[in-house]
């Protein structure tokens, strides 16, 4: 097969699979609805519960707590949304649909690329809903339109990267419930021991070491810089490098899993 035909097939397969997954979200809108409910609850509760304790004003980077909080909750939501990829794939595997795809002469990466791309579209939708709710709660971009778009871009890149981590996990465990549990184990430490909700200086020093150097913190700081103009010491680049590094490791791992014919 010629190279260009092969590339054409890869793209066409990926488009077919992406569309198939998007149909699911369109025909079961409650899925997208419920994946927005939880972060909206977080956003509202944190805003009213911690907002009072932490207070508004100059002590908080970004002025108002909601301005500080929203990029953090968005980062958590993107991480969580990215990890959903594993659940979807494990479900397809359980139903034998992955076996069907594997027996077809289609590209070996399309099933996962289609899944991660459609999950990115879903995450973008959820981010849009959260920004709307945030705006109602008083959130305002402080740093111009281009940087606002940049914030959404860096968040989506991150969710895409973790989608591939989840694709690898989902293909490895092959069971939706296990995939779900595994994603909680990843989400909670990474988001709570980060700059997402509270300033890192308030944590015990041993935890600060971890919190300062992990990808969610860099993502949150990058998002805050882009949204609010809070200087972040290069977090935008750090976050981009994190995402690309994760992709460069987990894309090949996930595809190798898909190709494996051991069981």
């Amino acid at each position, binding site marked *: 097969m010629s190279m260009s035909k092969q590339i054409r097939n890869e793209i066409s397969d990926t488009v077919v699979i992406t569309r*198939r997954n998007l149909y699911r979200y369109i025909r079961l809108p409650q899925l997208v609805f419920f994946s927005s409910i939880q972060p909206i609850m977080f956003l509202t509760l944190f805003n009213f519960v911690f907002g009072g304790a932490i207070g508004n004003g100059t002590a908080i980077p970004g002025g108002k707590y909601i301005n500080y909080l929203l990029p953090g909750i968005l980062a958590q939501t993107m991480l969580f949304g990215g990890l959903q990829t594993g659940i979807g794939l494990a479900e397809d595997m359980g139903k034998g649909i992955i076996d069907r795809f594997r027996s077809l002469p289609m590209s070996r990466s399309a099933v996962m690329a289609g899944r991660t791309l459609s999950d990115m579209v879903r995450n973008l939708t959820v981010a849009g809903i959260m920004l709307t709710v945030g705006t109602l709660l008083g959130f305002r971009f402080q740093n111009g339109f281009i940087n606002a778009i940049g914030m959404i871009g860096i968040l989506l890149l991150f969710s895409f990267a973790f989608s591939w981590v989840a694709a690898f996990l989902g293909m490895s465990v092959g069971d939706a419930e296990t995939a779900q549990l595994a994603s909680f184990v990843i989400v909670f430490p990474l988001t709570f021991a980060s700059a997402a909700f509270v300033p890192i200086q308030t944590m015990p020093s041993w935890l600060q070491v971890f919190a300062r150097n992990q990808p969610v913190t860099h993502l949150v700081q990058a998002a805050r810089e882009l949204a609010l103009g809070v200087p972040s010491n290069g977090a935008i680049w750090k976050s981009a490098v994190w995402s690309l590094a994760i992709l460069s490791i987990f894309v090949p791992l996930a595809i190798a899993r898909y190709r494996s014919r051991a069981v």
Partner: protein
Amino acid sequence: MKKPYAFEVKDVAKYYDGGKVKALDGVTLQAEQGKIFGLLGPNGAGKTTIVRMLSTLLSPTRGTAKVLGIDVDKEPNKVREIIGLAGQYAAVDEFLTGRENIYMSGRLYHLGHAEAKKRTADILERLQLTDAADRQVKTYSGGMRRRLDLGASLIGQPKILFLDEPTTGLDPRTRLDLWNIIRDLVAGGTTILLTTQYLEEADELADHIAVIDHGKVIAEGTSDQLKARLGGDVVEFQLAHKRDLATALKAVASHAKKEPTIDEDGLTITVPVKDGSRSLMAVVGALNTAKIIPTSLSLHRPSLDDVFLALTGKKTQTSEDAASSASKKGKK
């Protein structure tokens, strides 16, 4: 040059858990093109393992598998171009419509939009799914899902089609419909590997049958050859009075292949015969000459059930047993 086998496995083994589970333990099979190859075996025999191996989903621990002469392990992508797979459990997308499911498979075989659309419509028609075609699959019955699954595997016009227990859980009517579809496919030149737990199905459809159990082939041949291994036909009749027994035995003696057996009641006589209905006529003639009118008279051929029982020491499932165990088993 000789035509390559439709598929061929040579001494394949598949071990799990470091050799503790031997799903397949040295299986050799060859299937001619354009025929139905029946793979018959009880639960856990290794049927699905063979199908998964030939359809590129599983690599063997040992041995080679080829489809139309192409090594499955070395060139899986070439094999995928020429096969279709309908697995043991219908793998269809609940939230797509029937039409979308088949069309999607077509696109993944890299058919153009127009071609995929046309073939989809043909297949839906052939599988009598046109009326339900634009409904989401979650509203489909089990039988409809199975047909749809088959439909999705047909869109690439495969040369070799793997059907893993295609009729398990179907009602008798739907099963007959599916049998006809399978026959049509073979008439159109497709080779089919059909696994089944139903003897009558193998008997009815398969040109060549391999019986497997515990990962090994325990018998192979046409259904007639397998039955012949059990010693052929018998004539069975029942007398009205015990006092006729001696006369009757004397009358039929020259037509018996082996010593006739007499039932405990002393009335029912079973005569192994050489030549089916011809022997039956001869026995009738002899009894008539001896002025004995039996209360019942019949010719039996051994069923594949008898063969299976003799080979494995296990009774195979009747369709009803299997249907109820399949519904208990549910999804994997």
